[in-house]
């Protein structure tokens, strides 16, 4: 078994190649580049692995198209994509709720949906928002979900439910009927249901939806805490900064296809950074920069952005100042994951077709 460096927190443990997942080639990661690295994970060690997974709904709509997804053990895996890109269909196939049209999926090394009863007790899931029995109290909702799991010990049920409620900060409201809960409280209760047992994999679909900023921070802290315990977290989100903050790996989907997957640091590095000059004299600045051989100039309201130059940026700054341009800010802005995302999908977060 490959030694996994679980003690290194955050993206530091992310290494390995960004794997472009075209339709043609196999998306299997290359063999590990460094000894002991976790970057390349053989499919056998992957917590989630899909091969050419496809789903065509009745009516002919192809929701997921030849997906080759590999989620390494111990990662916090961000699953990104605009609405309608097939994220939820993929998650439902992984959880055995939807039968794939073709291709295979394995979770925790076992085929899904065939091994659902063996695999799912080790998986906590929050799928498309929480769903609760409004006429039951929060605690009774959790007791019911726990009773649905035939591997859950009824003798420890109340204690485990209490712990889960405590963990999401819902102990005080546990006796209230769930219909009286706010969206944020429902979201927390849904998370608590995913945490009823120690899990090896958590699948969280938009876990911070409906939460206030404080709640979002708490959930992120919880995700980090779970990940440091060794739980693999598969997190779908449309909040890019959220993915950037908590995830070690990410995959991007668009129109049913996987665009890219790999460690977050590599994904962001893949996008180009920009030279940003903040100045009121935008016209002059653009002219000087062009004379200096800078390309891809874009004039904005507050200044000019451009392709970063190959030479020392300070020389450009000196040229601007010498020409009398009032430079108020000058620097190279690192690309965010959002830039990477836009570059990859060629679109923002609009609903796909």
């Amino acid at each position: 078994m490959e030694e996994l460096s679980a003690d290194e927190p955050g993206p530091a443990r992310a290494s390995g190649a960004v794997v472009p997942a075209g339709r043609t080639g196999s998306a299997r990661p290359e063999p590990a580049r460094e000894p002991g690295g976790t970057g390349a994970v053989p499919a056998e060690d992957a917590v989630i692995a899909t091969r050419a997974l496809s789903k065509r709904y009745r009516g002919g709509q192809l929701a997921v198209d030849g997906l080759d997804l590999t989620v390494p053990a111990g990662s916090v895996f961000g699953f990104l994509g605009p609405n309608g890109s097939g994220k939820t269909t993929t998650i439902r196939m992984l959880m055995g709720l939807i039968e794939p049209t073709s291709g295979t999926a394995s979770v925790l090394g076992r085929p899904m949906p065939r091994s659902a009863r063996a695999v799912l007790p080790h998986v906590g899931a929050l799928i498309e928002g929480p769903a609760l029995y409004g006429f039951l109290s929060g605690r009774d909702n959790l007791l019911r979900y726990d009773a649905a799991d035939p591997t859950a010990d009824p003798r420890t049920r109340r204690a485990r439910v209490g712990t889960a409620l405590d963990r999401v900060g819902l102990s005080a409201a546990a006796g209230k009927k769930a219909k009286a809960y706010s969206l944020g409280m429902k979201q927390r209760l849904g998370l608590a249901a995913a945490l009823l047992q120690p899990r090896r994999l958590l699948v969280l679909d938009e876990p911070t939806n409906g939460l206030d900023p404080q709640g979002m921070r708490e959930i992120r802290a919880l995700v980090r805490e779970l990940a440091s315990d060794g739980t693999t977290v598969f997190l779908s989100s449309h909040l890019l900064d959220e993915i950037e903050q908590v995830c070690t790996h990410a995959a991007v989907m668009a129109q049913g296809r996987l665009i890219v997957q790999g460690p977050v640091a590599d994904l962001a590095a893949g996008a180009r950074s920009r030279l940003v000059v903040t100045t009121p004299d935008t016209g002059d600045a653009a002219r000087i920069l062009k004379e200096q051989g800078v390309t891809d100039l874009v004039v904005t309201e507050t200044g000019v952005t451009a392709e970063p130059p190959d030479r020392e940026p300070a020389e450009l700054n000196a040229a601007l100042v010498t020409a009398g341009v009032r430079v108020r800010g000058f620097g190279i802005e690192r690309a965010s994951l959002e830039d990477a995302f836009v570059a990859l999908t060629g679109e923002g977060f609009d609903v796909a077709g």
Partner: protein
Amino acid sequence: MSRAESPPKRDAKTENARPMATPTDQGAARKTGPDPRTGRGPSPLWTLGLFRDELVTTFRRWRTIALLGVLAAVPVLIGVAVKIETRGGSSAGGGGGEGPAFIAQITNNGLFLVFTGLAATLPFFLPMAIGVIAGDAIAGEANAGTLRYLLVAPAGRTRLLLTKYATTMTFCLVATLVVAVSAFAVGALLFPLGELTTISGTRIGFAEGLGRALLIALVVAASLTGVAALGLFVSTLTNSGIAAMATTVGLLITVQILDQIPQLHALQPYFFSHYWLSFADLMRDPVYWDGLVRDLGLQGLYVAVFGSAAWARFTTKDITA
């Protein structure tokens, strides 16, 4: 800490009570088994936890309590009406033999209110209540979105369906007993009890009469299992609880109407409600079993056909709700 988090070996033989743990895989065992030191896996009895929870959840709902309340009120209404009607000493329904079965006998023996109450609620009130519970069983969970969480728990589709059907059957029995007990209480309060006369004219003791009343309640409950299976099947077809309930109750009314059309007599023996009132044959001496056997056989057929259909549908369905 060394992490023993590898996914389990792809070995079909490990798919037993403690599926994910291998002897060398202590980390996984810690997370898997409830009691790793003794090596015991989940008890097979735990699988009944869902049924228990389902029963408690169903019978704690206001909707269920309201349905049972309506059912309990029917014998009260009949009893009070008969009492008022017969205050002058005339016998109820004596004129033209109208009204539910046995209604004329109630003034002589309160126990007959049990039979009258069941005869009055069986054509509509009881199956409607069953239709609500059965129709909502799967579709209601789908509607609320709770179905996906039950299935990823994982409840198991066959297990969940069996749990739902067992709960609906339990509701059949409880609903019938609620009518019977309410009728017996009202009958005992308002009318004399004692020996009773069977349809055949013979007299049987009160204890035996009570036994037959219980038997009739059980037969009535069993007569409703066909509707329950039908409702459960409808429930697997849609993601709307209301639609499933309405369809089931609509089918019930349609079948009751078709059962009254003489031209359809060739089809009528296959209507689930056709032999329902044969429970009255239990009040003959000796008991006339023909109709009862046909009724129970037909219910068995409905359970087999629609139970299988529900299973086939539910175990292959894409859960998109």
